[in-house]
């Protein structure tokens, strides 16, 4: 594990040098949230109305939190670099190193989001408090478990994105599959809470990464309950375990294919 800690630390130190560049991304985050604030402002006829059980403030906070995860956890490492390493042949050098390539990518990615995420978190809280107002049912004591949920969500997302990137072992360009995965996550779990869909669809979405990556953590922030928290954490642990197994399985299969092709 120590080698991954070293990779993590070196990437973290490198990213700390570029906080100004990361802060440039605040513009896009601000604009997206501004658009959604205006949209939900329009959708709620009066401030006391409930849509899918959410008040206007809860709905805007929900979108701000899912967007925070979206922006704070985005990185080219899991989406593009892994695919490019395979496509460009760099994988032939990386797989001979004394570490597991998927874990190397995960350690590197963790070093990136551990700088980005706290920055977006601060911006999201500042924006929410000034433009929407405080969350009425939020209790500070729930924060550690919410942070754990957010971290699990980010890792599940990373594992699935690496799985998609590793499709590059078989196809020339895996990036279009990333678009589709991202868009489903964005449209179904990020822009709305899943309660907005019909009962049957809700049950279906609970079995997808959408439930564990964006809906779960954001739901706990805007409307915490112990039962929901346990349900989400259990789903996240199952998803992380299953996703990791799938990731190693695809990698092993892909590497064998790489040997066949000569590397």
């Amino acid at each position, binding site marked *: 594990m120590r080698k991954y800690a070293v990779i993590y630390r070196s990437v973290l130190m490198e990213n700390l040098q570029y906080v100004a560049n990361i802060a440039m991304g605040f513009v*896009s985050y601000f604009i997206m949230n501004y*658009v959604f604030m*205006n949209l939900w402002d329009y959708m709620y006829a009066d401030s006391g109305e409930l849509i899918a059980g959410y008040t206007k403030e809860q709905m805007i906070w929900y979108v701000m939190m899912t967007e925070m995860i979206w922006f704070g956890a985005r990185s080219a490492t899991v989406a593009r670099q892994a695919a490019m390493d395979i496509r460009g042949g760099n994988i032939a050098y990386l797989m001979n190193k004394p570490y597991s390539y998927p874990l190397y990518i995960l350690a590197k990615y963790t070093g990136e989001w551990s700088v980005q995420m706290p920055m977006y978190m601060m911006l999201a809280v500042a924006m929410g408090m000034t433009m929407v107002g405080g969350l009425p049912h939020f209790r500070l004591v729930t924060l550690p478990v919410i942070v754990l949920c957010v971290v699990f969500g980010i890792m599940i997302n990373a594992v699935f994105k690496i799985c998609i990137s590793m499709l590059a072992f078989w196809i*020339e360009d895996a990036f279009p599959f990333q678009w589709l995965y991202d868009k489903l996550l964005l449209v179904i779990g990020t822009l709305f809470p899943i309660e907005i869909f019909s009962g049957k669809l809700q049950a279906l979405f609970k079995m997808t990464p959408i439930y564990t990556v964006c809906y779960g953590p954001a739901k706990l922030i805007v409307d915490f309950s112990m039962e929901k928290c346990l349900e989400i954490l259990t789903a996240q642990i199952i998803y992380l375990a299953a996703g990791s197994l799938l990731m190693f399985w695809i990698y092993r299969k892909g590497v064998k294919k790489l040997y066949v092709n000569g590397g």
Partner: protein
Amino acid sequence: MSTAVKNQLRVCLLSVKYNIMREMVNKVTFLTNILFMMLNNAAFIIQWSILFGLREDIGGYSMKEVMLLWGLTASSFGLSHILFARVFTIHELIISGKLDAYLVQPKNVLLSVMTSSTTASAIGDFLYGIVVMCIFSFSVRRFLLFLLFTVTGTLIITAFAILVGSLSFWFVRTEMFGVHMVNSMISFATYPDGIFHGTARFLLYYVIPVGMAIYQPVHVMVKFDGGILFRVLKYTLCIWLAAVIVFYRGLRRYSSSNLMEARM
């Protein structure tokens, strides 16, 4: 004079043609990129179906009009990335001193920079826009207007990208600012202007040119107004003049990095 213009345009068209042919080297990847981009855009129909399930009109728009808005945004954005993809990364050429390769050619510098690359997936955006328009609100007159506004939208988006990209001639760390400004155009353009008020509305019409590129054309397609049509055409001409002036003013400040580079 006319021969020179004709030659220049011929070179530009050939450049675009070869860019697309280069992208088509791997046909499966090329087609996958286009198809998946169309599916990617179609995912947003879910979003709007849900929103229109909650309210009948959003910002004064019906579902058909929002789809028209989406169609025009996708086709304008797509066409600008098919023909002039390089303008969206023009700051990189300026900062790293890679404009040299364009300066030494006996061609118009801005035109040869603009037409030097293409994005294959943007063909998916362009086609998606046309398909959505035809499915949701087809009529011959509206289709012709749609094609005209796709051209004006493409020109406005491209000119705006040149304007913000050219800031890199004067300021070193503006590249991300420019990228975010162009991206913000897309973020705003896919939501009805009726939901924005006050300062935001002013910004959308006078700072980020979404109003003239997308909103006003959609209003004209829904209810024809010759005055607005003429205003959009005039605005397109003005923003292009501004972009050309700013680019060539900036070019005077450009300094080479003595980078050896060959363009194939």
